[in-house]
């Protein structure tokens, strides 16, 4: 009798339960979500049978064949009158300027056939704010936003501009006659011409108050400086002149104040070659600044002023009262370092409280910052909002003394702590006008919405800081029937007449203002037309600023301030809520910009949402899940403070101060496309203290709701798995040994001789290489990335989107790890690696575990950012596995991707050690399922005509902007010359505010990249795999006293025991 076996998958099958039997016949355990992707119609209800299907198939094949034989008729429309400077196919660049209430930058706008497609930072002709941020880079897409208002609206209905004008003028006159006031509420106005227009408007009606309110307030700083320095101004903080910086909750590298200047300036001090600055950060929520700090200390938001007092006491020797903090040792260390760098030191504080700012100013005074690291000669005007005045206005509206309001770049019904009060107040007014170019929360409450042009369609002038007058010029005709906001005021004031949307009324007005005020300040140009034209061409006019002394009536001393701090900054019970801005969304002006929504937050790597950040230890305590992933949704929590309650998911954020939570503002907008309205508005959680709006509130209650919420995070790993992806060292170690932290891998060998050279037991990965080298006859393009300069801001990611037509895939796809970013920024947390721990580990697994344990982020981890794109390997693993030769190598060192050859096997992506290849799971254009911007004609105008839009089923990846390389080469060939180093810039490089990314030709021995590649700090990612990348990284050097333990690195140097014996060497 034969022994018969039965095989079963589970007990259900073995026992043949009813359910199992029922399901056995089904092909899939559960129905696949096909309909979700295949269209809106319900497939199961359609009546397409097999025969019909075959008919359709036959018909479509025939139709396709017939259609393919017939040449489709394509029309080609040349210009009727060709503009002199426009050659189709050749880009034009225009100098301009960007300003919203968050950012100012001098920019270059790249246009193709009269349509802006790319914003480049760095206008070479003027010394302004030449770094750009992700938001500025993405602003070009907001121009082509389908949700923009297309005409004037009255109570939600279209109205003609002339009707609106006459009705509004009548209403304004009525208000003036009835003795009530009219308010113009704006965010900070830095435009001299706009200010003049408002003044003209005020003069005409005589009852107008101009109130400025910024979503993010900084009004405590100038007031404090008035008391301490006698200058009521925001100075230009010269981070480029610092050697010691202490930041107390001020994210100056991310979003604080004039951050576009600070990022680049501070990076200049971070080269380990010369003197290198040291950055101390004391903050509650992990910010970019904290992440880049040499020493970061987690403190509660309410403890920050106390920490400042302690620092002041240590520096001045006085004994002002303050709560004793746990981080006293760190404050002492910081004080010592600052003191040692007197005259080159700077302290900044991110709390918008005049007392905290007084202490900060006093510290800076002690450090000799005035005139050195605090430049009052070119003060910054971009943050002039007065939250007190806005509060008063709200009260006046309620009391009935204000009859009308005009909103320009202001949205108090969204971004004021008392947002809902504003909404009610505005809707009750007799006259309410908003100049919002997109519908917003405040405009909704207004009677009239008179949409403004997008900034790329408008003329404007800006005076962002002392002595600098930037001109913004239109780079496209207005797309819709909109009007420049200033023109409205001028028309109502009787200063201009309406023509159509192309009206030049405001430009003429601006010219008049410039003629009167600025023309006389220069001698270079004799005629005003010349002066004007050159100013427009250069993008700015620069003159000297005459400082004015203004001392406030009430002088606050350090002692007064400390006393007030002790009474106001008390932690109390419950959580402290800290509101912060994300790099992408900021204060929410471009909240429905899909590029920015899909930009991963630099710290949490979460896209498309805001959330509560909490310390992992506390989360475990409260029972929140600390992991998020495709299958691990985040837990929802309800947070109540000040009588307001919102529900948000909770995300673990190592480094978050215990007892505090962080929430990003800018989310929870109520207008935009479906799917782009996301998150919750956190502005109402802010508070009013001492008459200024604060970004923190105490006494929040947090409770778990029991619901879960899927979040889309792009990088959920928190360790490097023990591999040398990021290399770090300390400044002291670097000074001693330039190769410190940059150990080259080697392989054990038993051969004695190789290619005529003696071998002593080890082979470097170069020597161990058996591939044939390829020719690089002319160019060898390459990139180097300085990890010391990179601060993870993400401007490069957006620039790459814009340049290379990288699609937006949406939250759901990101969750499925199908993000399309060609360039990603990896964020690694690390804490001290312990020599004993590693040395005591025996065997590979123990070594790895010790490494892993050490890498689990502690309460205050260190953070490293590393931008990763295609490494353009000379021996590319992707190329060898492609069955159709769709990815090949160029003789200029580029790894090429030929989309029309690719059949989508995805072997290449699997074989790529850097995981930089992206697969088009869907057709992301002309697809209703991905209704972001590639689904409508307007949004498609942002596409770069020199780069393909890829279709479903093909692989794509960083091309190192091959279109720019080809363009640069052609320019050189046409002009019969060689290529100048630095002439060709990749998109990411052009956007990088810190110049961390360099691009050039390794074959050119005078090139910067050639020099950087030869630098001791240069290393190739995973060089031991032998891929020979053309992208090099520079070891990150931190200015810390503690030495880094480089594990096996030192073992090599000392010639001691080698980890090979531990089985570790085989990587």
């Amino acid at each position, binding site marked *: 009798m034969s022994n018969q076996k039965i095989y079963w998958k589970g007990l259900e099958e073995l026992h043949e339960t009813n359910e199992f039997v029922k399901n056995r016949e089904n092909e899939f355990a559960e129905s696949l979500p096909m309909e979700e992707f295949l269209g809106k119609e319900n497939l199961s209800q359609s009546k397409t049978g097999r025969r019909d299907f075959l008919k359709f198939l036959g018909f479509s094949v025939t139709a396709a064949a017939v259609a393919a034989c017939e040449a489709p008729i394509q029309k080609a429309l*040349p210009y009727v009158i060709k503009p002199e400077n426009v050659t189709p196919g050749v880009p034009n660049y225009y100098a301009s300027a960007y300003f919203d209430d968050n950012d100012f930058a001098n920019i270059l706008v790249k246009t193709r056939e009269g349509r802006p497609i790319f914003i480049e930072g760095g206008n070479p002709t003027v010394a302004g704010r030449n770094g750009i941020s992700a938001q500025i880079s993405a602003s070009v897409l907001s121009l082509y936003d389908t949700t923009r208002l297309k005409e004037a609206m009255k109570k939600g209905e279209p109205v003609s501009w002339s009707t609106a004008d006459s009705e509004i003028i009548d209403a304004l006159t009525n208000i003036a006659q009835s003795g009530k006031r009219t308010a113009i509420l704006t965010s900070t106005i830095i435009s001299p011409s706009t200010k003049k227009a408002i003044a003209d408007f005020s003069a005409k009606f005589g009852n107008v108050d101009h109130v400025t309110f910024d979503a993010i307030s900084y009004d405590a700083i100038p007031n404090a400086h008035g008391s301490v320095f006698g200058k009521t101004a925001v100075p230009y903080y010269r981070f480029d002149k610092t050697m010691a910086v202490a930041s107390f909750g001020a994210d100056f590298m991310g979003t604080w104040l004039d951050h576009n200047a600070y990022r680049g300036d501070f990076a200049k001090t971070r080269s380990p070659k010369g003197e290198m600055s040291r950055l101390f950060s004391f903050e509650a929520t992990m910010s970019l600044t904290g992440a880049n700090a040499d020493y970061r200390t987690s403190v509660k938001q309410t403890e920050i002023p106390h920490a400042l007092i302690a620092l002041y006491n240590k520096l001045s020797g006085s004994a002002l009262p303050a709560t004793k903090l746990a981080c006293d040792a760190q404050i002492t260390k910081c004080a010592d370092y600052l003191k040692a760098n007197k005259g080159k030191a700077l302290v900044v504080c991110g709390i918008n409280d005049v007392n905290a700012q007084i202490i900060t100013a006093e510290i800076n005074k002690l450090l000799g910052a005035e005139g050195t690291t605090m430049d009052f000669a070119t003060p910054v005007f971009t943050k002039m909002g007065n939250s007190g005045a806005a509060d008063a206005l709200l009260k006046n509206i309620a009391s009935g003394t204000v009859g009308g309001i005009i909103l320009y770049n202001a949205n108090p019904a969204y971004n004021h702590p008392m947002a809902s009060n504003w909404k009610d107040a505005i809707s009750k007014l007799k006259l309410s006008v908003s100049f919002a170019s997109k519908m917003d929360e405040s405009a909704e409450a207004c009677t009239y919405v008179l949409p403004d042009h997008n900034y790329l369609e408008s003329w404007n002038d800006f005076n962002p800081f002392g002595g600098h007058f930037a001109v913004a010029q239109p780079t496209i005709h207005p797309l819709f029937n909109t009007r420049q906001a200033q023109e409205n005021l001028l028309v109502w004031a009787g200063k201009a007449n309406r023509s159509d949307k192309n009206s030049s009324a405001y430009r003429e007005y601006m010219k008049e203002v410039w003629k009167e005020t600025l023309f006389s300040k220069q001698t270079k140009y004799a005629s005003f037309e010349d002066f004007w034209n050159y100013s427009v061409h250069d993008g700015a006019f620069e003159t000297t600023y005459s400082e004015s002394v203004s001392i406030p009536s009430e002088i606050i001393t350090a002692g007064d301030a400390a006393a007030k701090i002790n009474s106001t900054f008390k932690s109390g019970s419950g959580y402290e809520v800290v509101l912060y801005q994300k790099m992408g969304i900021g204060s929410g002006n471009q909240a429905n910009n899909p590029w920015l929504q899909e930009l991963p937050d630099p710290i949490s790597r979460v896209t498309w949402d805001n959330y509560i950040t909490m310390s992992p230890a506390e989360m475990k305590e409260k029972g929140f899940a600390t992991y998020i992933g495709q299958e691990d949704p985040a837990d929802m929590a309800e947070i109540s403070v000040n009588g307001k309650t919102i529900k948000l998911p909770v995300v673990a954020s190592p480094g978050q101060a215990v007892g505090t939570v962080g929430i990003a503002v800018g989310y929870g907008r109520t207008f935009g496309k479906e799917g782009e309205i996301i998150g919750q508005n956190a502005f109402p959680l802010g508070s009013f203290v001492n008459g200024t709006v604060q970004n923190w509130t105490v006494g929040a209650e947090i409770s778990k709701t029991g619901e879960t919420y899927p979040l889309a995070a792009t990088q959920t790993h928190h360790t490097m798995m023990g591999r040398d992806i990021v290399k770090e060292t300390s400044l002291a170690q670097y000074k001693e040994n330039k190769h410190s932290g940059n150990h080259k891998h080697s392989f054990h060998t038993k051969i004695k001789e190789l290619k005529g050279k003696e071998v002593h037991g080890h082979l470097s990965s170069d020597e161990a290489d058996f591939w044939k080298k390829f020719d690089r006859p*002319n160019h060898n393009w390459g990139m180097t990335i300085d990890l010391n300069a990179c601060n993870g801001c993400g401007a490069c990611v957006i620039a790459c989107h814009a340049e290379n037509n990288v699609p937006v895939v949406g939250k759901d796809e990101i969750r499925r790890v199908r993000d399309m970013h060609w360039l990603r920024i990896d964020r690694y947390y690390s804490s001290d690696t312990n020599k004993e721990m590693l040395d005591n580990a025996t065997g590979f697994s123990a070594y790895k575990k010790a490494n892993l344990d050490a890498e689990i982020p502690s309460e205050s981890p260190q953070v490293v950012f590393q931008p990763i794109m295609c490494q353009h390997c000379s021996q590319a693993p992707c190329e060898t596995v492609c069955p159709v030769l769709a990815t090949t190598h160029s*003789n200029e060192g580029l790894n090429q991707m030929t989309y*029309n050859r690719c059949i989508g096997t995805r072997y290449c992506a699997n074989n790529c050690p850097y995981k930089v290849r992206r697969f088009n799971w869907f057709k992301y254009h002309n697809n209703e399922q991905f209704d972001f911007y590639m689904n409508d004609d307007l949004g498609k105008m942002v596409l770069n005509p020199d780069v393909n839009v890829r279709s479903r089923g093909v692989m794509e990846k960083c091309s190192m902007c*091959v279109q720019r390389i*080809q363009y640069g*080469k052609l320019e050189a060939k*046409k002009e019969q010359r060689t290529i100048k180093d630095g002439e060709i810039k990749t998109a990411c490089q052009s956007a990088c505010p810190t110049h961390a990314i360099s691009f050039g030709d390794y074959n050119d021995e005078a090139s910067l990249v050639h020099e950087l590649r030869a630098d001791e700090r240069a290393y190739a990612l995973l060089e031991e795999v032998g891929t020979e990348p053309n992208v090099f990284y520079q070891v990150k050097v931190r200015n810390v006293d503690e030495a880094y333990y480089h594990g096996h690195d030192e073992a090599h140097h000392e010639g001691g025991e080698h980890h090979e014996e531990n089985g570790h060497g085989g990587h």
Partner: protein
Amino acid sequence: MTDFMNKFLGYTMHRVMVLSLFSLISITAFAQPDGGKLFDSQCKRCHNIGEAKLVGPGLKDVRSRWSSEDNLIAWIQNSAEYLKTGDAYAVGLYEKYNKSAMPAFPTLSKEDVVAILDYVDAENSKAPEVAVAPTGTEGTAKEEDNSLMYVLIAVAVILSILIYSLYSMSSSLITVLKHRDGEDSVDDRSMLDKAEDCLKGMGSWAKENKKIVGLLVTVVVLIGLKFVWDSLLGIGVYTNYQPHQPIKFSHKIHAGEIGIACVYCHTGVTESKQATIPSASTCMNCHKGVKEGAQYGKVEIAKIYASIGFDPEKDAYIENYNQKPYEEMASLYENWLGDGDAYRQVQSFIQKPISWVQIHKLPDHAYFNHAQHYKVGGIECETCHGPVQEMEEVYQYSPLTMGWCINCHRDTKVKFEENPYYDKLHDYLSKRYKEGAQFTVSRIGGLECGKCHY
């Protein structure tokens, strides 16, 4: 040491002298103005080299028409100034051409003008050249294709004749046999029956000769597959595509007879990836003066006027043309044309851009740059676009397939000379390969995917 110094100095001096000699020669060579180039760049857009009138008169025998060469030169250098002398011929000329003055050419020296005039005379004394139709590889390939078809048809015809004669032979043999056997010799069966018999006969023959039938079937199937394959390769290839254009613009007249250089209108070719279709304003450079064509009269030119807003009666552009009422503008052109039929053709052009039909369309996902080929590579327009100067209506001359691109890249030599961009590359290649100084585009990476696909 001194010895060495002397030698060195001597050597250097020698070099310097040789070099200066060379440069002297090149300077003198340079000093000779090139009449042809000057004519092309300065005169060609308004003057025909022969007799035909363009914007200005044809230049044949221009020297003999003028009283003296000095006067002619003065007129060319600054016609407005010369008119003041009151020269009768000059004034007459000015009147004849609607008082549209010839622009001044202050940059042309006396020698330049003489060189131009010499060139004009030399060109006119030449025997008229017969334009040689370029014989591209494509042309011959097409011939082969057709001949293959003819051969196949011929084979098919011969085979059918053979089958028929074999069958009739066998049937007459059968008849003879039957006749000998004393059967009725008269075949009175109907044609249908005969055909049936014939088929039956063939069927039984096929049964007996399976190998031959199998072979025949294989051959037929293979030939069929070849046809299918060829026709599939032709999908998306639009060689000879010749759509009708909204304006009957004749390249034969403009580029051929008048001899306007391609670049004069297709300006993008030196700068951009697109050669660009000229804007209506470019047409107006000449057609401001030339209001009537030899071939189509006023109609086709009126289309340009209607598009751009030019009033041919008043000889002036219409201000704010696009804002003017359509009817007003329509009547303006109707009156000028004075012909209902002609006007109806012009109607749709009023206040509208001219929508040409695109002829050359690159396959999707491919990048092509005109400037690279024309300006850097020095490829003539005709190489790809064919004899445009002979085309009344332009057609697509080249297949624009990848194979066609690649073949050209395999054969074409790179113009390394005089372009310092290529110096390093050329040195490298000369050392690396032993092909001499000339290298094809494929050698410098011209076959790489990423050069055209990104």
